[in-house]
């Protein structure tokens, strides 16, 4: 069987690319780390790939604002990404990748290209590295979340992860269209404040998916939970076999193969 080709985008300051590649490799993908300069110079073409990933990191040092400079670069020099998303192929933005997709106007809704949401500094005013509990939107069409349990755990690590929207109407639209794919919750599965919501995101939003279900952006890091040994409590528990993050990337690979 042909392995789905996964483009993992790199630029100065990307830093989660290798573990992201590892995760895709584990589920039968063929990951390739491609620098944005190589795409811009035409050495590689987006359309040759089946899955597109913008991994976490600090693109351009998060200078000005997290993901801003990369978002501008994507808008101006990578118009093919919009077409790629429209074609229905899986696109994943993790952490800094999520920030870039939103600021490039590709999420929550890439049709107009307008930026309708953004990120602000965490309410705690600190970088927060911690594991979070997340509730999936079971009505979401998101291909990455298919057949996943409703409650999952993933780690976050960011300083500018507070999801904000342009207007109350945008939030209503997001709710109505089931674009809110993941929310930070407490042990009981309810929306709760800090530290459950590590950044103060509106409506505890942790991840957003487009209405077609093929483009997911999220602050938590799926690639950091691909085996049970990544879980902070694996020495206490025996039930979990592999990481939930692996299921997410496996869904993308399966989607391509189906």
């Amino acid at each position, binding site marked *: 069987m042909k392995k789905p080709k996964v483009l993992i985008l790199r630029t100065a300051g990307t830093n989660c690319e290798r573990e992201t590649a590892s995760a895709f490799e584990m589920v039968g993908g063929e990951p390739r780390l491609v620098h944005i300069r190589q795409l811009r110079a035409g050495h590689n073409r987006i359309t040759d790939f089946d899955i597109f990933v913008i991994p976490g990191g600090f693109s*351009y*040092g998060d*200078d*000005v*604002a997290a993901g*801003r*400079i990369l978002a*501008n*670069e994507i808008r*101006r*020099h990578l118009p093919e990404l919009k077409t790629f998303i429209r074609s229905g192929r899986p696109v994943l933005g993790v952490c800094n990748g999520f920030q870039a997709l939103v*600021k490039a106007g590709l999420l929550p809704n890439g049709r107009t290209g307008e*930026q*309708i*949401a*953004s*990120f*602000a*500094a*965490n*309410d*705690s*005013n600190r970088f927060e590295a911690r594991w979070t509990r997340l509730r999936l939107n079971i009505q979401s069409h998101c291909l990455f979340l298919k057949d996943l349990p409703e409650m999952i755990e993933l780690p976050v690590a960011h300083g500018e992860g*507070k999801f*904000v*929207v*342009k207007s109350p109407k945008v939030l209503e639209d997001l709710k109505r269209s089931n674009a809110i794919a993941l929310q930070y919750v407490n042990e009981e599965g309810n929306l709760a404040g800090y530290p459950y919501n590590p950044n*103060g995101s509106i409506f505890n939003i942790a991840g957003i998916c487009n209405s077609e279900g093929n483009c997911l952006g999220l602050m938590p890091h799926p690639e950091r939970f691909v085996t049970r040994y990544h879980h902070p409590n694996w020495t206490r528990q025996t039930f979990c076999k592999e990481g939930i993050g692996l299921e997410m990337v496996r869904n993308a690979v399966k989607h391509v193969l189906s």
Partner: protein
Amino acid sequence: MTLLLAPAALNRIRVQESNSWRVEVLCKPNLLDARGAALRAQLPWLGVQGVTDVRVDQLYRLSGRLTQHQAVSIAQQLLADPITQEYRVNGHPSNAVPSQTPCCRIEAWLKTGVTDRVGESVRRAILDMGLPIPEEVRCATVYRFFGRFVQAQAERVAAKMLGNPLIHRFEISLGRNAP
């Protein structure tokens, strides 16, 4: 030889100055300013009691041959976030000015000769937008304090909390002079 400049020379200087753009990027007033809130919480520790609110914003000085239109594009597309921030380019539009007047405003700049890392990043990003690259971009953090604040406190807060006099230069304006 006299050191006084002829009027023509003064004009020349003014023309050159218009090649320097001050872009101020402000957090929208309805949003929590996490940095400001954290700073305010620390103020009593320095013996400053009367401050009710602190807002922290960014200021960029772009030097180089840029038209007003270009400067505004840079502010709009690069420096300010359309959702969370507002901007002023050389003071315009003035409606981006917060409704309340701060009692004190402190700008913290990196001293001349100290590498401005973010400024360099902004320069490159401007070039990548297809615009002429500015000769220099310097960034400052602007602190606006609301409530009561006196000069001595401002100097103390600047040196103890907002930066390090070894590498930072502070511009402090109090009362009405603090937009």
